[in-house]
């Protein structure tokens, strides 16, 4: 039998060594697998790890890809810290994008960028409303939020599909399931850099991330609200003893995380797509769960975790495009990376004891 025994103290050195070792192991096993499958291993590793950093516009693409992951991950962090398992960020992302899209398309001639404040708020409301369903069911009827939030993802997917094929379809789209393009006022522009022009797809939405991370850090570490979330997550009885209201904390974290997922949806669509289509998310809501945990449920950690995951995702795209390596193979590699990162983190905190017996 294997038992995990908590270490008395986490060694400072290992906090640095463990992630490096994890990466070394990942590279080793990655090399083995790529060789075994008949791909040039060094070339593959180059595509996955190095090519995303090889040009400045590619680096900015990492940020673009990481942007929704970090925003959603930060919201999920609040849920997971309070032991509320919101698995449905994907659905909240879609519903945020959809409500914002509906408002954007209702004002086809609007040009002022202040309109973005309205669409982003609408995105927050849309995502929050979608998360309010599991919140109210959990607090009033004690229904498991994991199932409800997850199933609502599929409802949201089918709903947006219905909307863009039906009520909001552009008559000029030649039968494609697409809405009309957003008005100018609802689009998030790319950032122009003087003398260079645009850097890949880098857009103003990224500013929201740089605003969100410090605010989230202050909220979690310095406010009574963050303290309440922490106490409820680690000792629900103690939260009762302190007079914290369990239900209002649960509802608040679900509304916040749903709202943030919705905002991520608005930013993604307004900056990168410019109209509604059946597929707006590409799994950001699910990947963000990994980002939240890989970032150890801390805002700064999530910032880095979002960048790491985005890098590997883009690297996998590159490997597919230049070398024809199928997505499943690079997906396997992502799995190996996560496995070793999480193992490294676990072994920092616990030592393993082998013992006989059943």
């Amino acid at each position, binding site marked *: 039998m294997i038992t995990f025994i908590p270490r008395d103290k986490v060694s400072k050195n290992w906090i640095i060594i463990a992630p490096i070792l994890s990466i070394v192991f990942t590279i080793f096993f990655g090399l083995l697998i790529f060789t075994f499958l008949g791909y040039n291993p060094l070339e593959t590793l180059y595509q996955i790890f190095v090519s995303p950093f090889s040009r400045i516009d590619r680096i900015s693409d990492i940020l673009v890809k990481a942007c929704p992951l970090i925003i959603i991950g930060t919201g999920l962090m609040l849920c997971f810290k309070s032991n509320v398992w919101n698995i449905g960020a994907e659905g909240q992302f879609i519903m945020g994008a959809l409500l914002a899209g509906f408002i954007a398309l209702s004002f086809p001639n609007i040009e002022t960028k202040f309109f973005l404040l309205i669409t982003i708020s609408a995105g927050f409301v849309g995502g929050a409303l979608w998360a309010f369903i599991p919140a109210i069911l959990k607090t009033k009827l004690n229904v498991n939020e994991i199932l409800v939030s997850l199933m609502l993802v599929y409802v949201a997917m089918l709903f947006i599909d219905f909307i863009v094929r039906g009520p909001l379809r552009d008559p000029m789209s030649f039968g494609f399931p697409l809405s009309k393009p957003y008005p100018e006022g609802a689009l998030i522009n790319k950032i122009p850099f003087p003398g260079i022009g645009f850097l890949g797809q880098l857009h103003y939405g990224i500013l929201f991330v740089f605003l969100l991370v410090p605010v989230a850090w202050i909220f979690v570490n310095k406010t*009574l609200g*963050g*303290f309440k979330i*922490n106490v409820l997550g680690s000792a629900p009885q103690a939260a*009762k*003893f*302190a*007079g914290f209201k369990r239900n209002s904390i649960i509802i608040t974290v679900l509304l916040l995380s749903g709202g943030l997922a919705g905002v991520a949806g608005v930013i993604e669509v307004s900056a990168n797509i410019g109209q509604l289509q059946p597929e707006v998310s590409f799994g950001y809501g699910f990947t963000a769960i990994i980002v939240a945990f890989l970032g150890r449920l801390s805002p700064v950690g999530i910032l880095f975790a979002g960048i790491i995951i985005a890098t590997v995702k883009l690297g996998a795209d590159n490997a597919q495009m230049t070398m024809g390596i199928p997505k499943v193979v690079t997906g396997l590699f992502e799995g190996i990376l996560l496995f070793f990162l999480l193992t490294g983190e676990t072994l920092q905190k616990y030592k393993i004891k082998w013992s006989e*017996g059943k």
Partner: protein
Amino acid sequence: MAKKELEILLKATKISKSFGDFVANQNIDISIAKGQIHALLGENGAGKSTLVKIFYGVLQPDSGLIEINNQKVSITSPNVARKNGIGMVFQHFSLFPALTVAENILIALDKKIKFNKVVNEITKLSKEWELFVDPLKLVSELSVGEKQRVEIIRCLMQNPSLLIMDEPTSVLTPQEIKNLFKILKRLASSGCSILYISHKLEEIIELADEVTILKSGKSIASINAKKTTTNFLAETMVGKKITELKKAIKSKSKKIAFEVKNLDKLKDHEFGISLTNINLQVNYGEILGVAGIAGNGQVELMEILSGEINCEDNDQILLDKIPIGTTNINERRKLGIETIPEERTFHATVPNLTLSENTFLTYFFKYSNTKSWITNLLNNPQNSLDESKKIIKNNDVRCPETNPLASQLSGGNLQKFILGRSLANNPKVAIFSQPTWGVDIGAATAIRQKLLDLSQSGKAVILISQDLEEIFELSNKICVINEGVLSEIFDVREITATDVGLLMGGKNRENQQMEPIK
């Protein structure tokens, strides 16, 4: 029982076991004769549980030798222990409440036996040993005493030659204890050895043939239990004279501080207890002891008294004759009612937070409306750090570092911190549940003295405790909770431990003509 030439069943030599830097057992020697009732005595943390877990194969010793019937054995798991004829009844029962007695026994058996055969076997054993239980009853419907009988039957099914019992009486009424002792004595005379763990001295003298005393992980004496006294045992166990408590002579005030009237509360989950028509009152300068076996509604009562759960009716709880039934826990703290729940970690404190943060846990309400709104929103570590330092200093809380995590403190020190944190709010009414449960004798004495001091300084105290000795030692008035029903309140001078025991078991007092006081 053989007097001389005792045949040795189990002999352990130089058993040592450490957890990290902490030495739980150090060169312990013990030998248990066949058919002997051997008591293992020691304070909390003396290493009793570690030693018996080694015998039962739950833990492995770092070094040392165990022989059974003169043959060296290595007990690597409870399975191996059972094959060697060792059975154990744990302090906390390991039964599934949703299964029947027979099903519970069936799943614990190593051999595969048909269900009907198990039922027959249980019926046979329970008749033979007067361990009466219905094999087809659900465990959730059993009383604590019955659950213990199920555990004993489960051990007897394996025909043990050694039965280990870990603090079996801590959950029983005096009457149930008497019964248990009868059974244990019969078992021993039939040749089954019993290793009996306890820190209750009278019990040991009544029951045991021999007693081994552990202190700080070492075996310091093995003595004939029939030729010793409780005083001698106590002094050997503690290693020093126990300081006597200074008890108040009598309560002076007749002013009612805190009252509960006609309170009903339905249980909110299947294995909870419904409270039925609770009435109690406590005067200033008085300690009201609420006795009762664990699991009879103490937790539910505490939730209502503390304000974690509100009453339906504001008039159901009165403070100084003013209704406060629907106020929440923090409003009650502001009114001067301080409570300490039974669970020290995860309820009274959060183990992975520091002491200053744990101070903030019940202290932050003081900021409300005192400073600007922005301060009210913030987690205020500096003030709570200062406050926690005061609590640590005033209550002799021994910490490994200046602001440790709550989980780094020993049980006794953590409880001193929790008590100090409550007292720092200078309460009028203090309601404490099991304040000395699982605490070493030094800290327990300090805590009890604090409670006495509190009542002597004119505060009202309600003490909910399973420890009858503690109840009688501290209280001015006593009542008993049984299955969610609270008995009348008696003056401590007018009720005996036997009466309280009967009430704890749900029976009326033997002596009915005694008048309850008003």
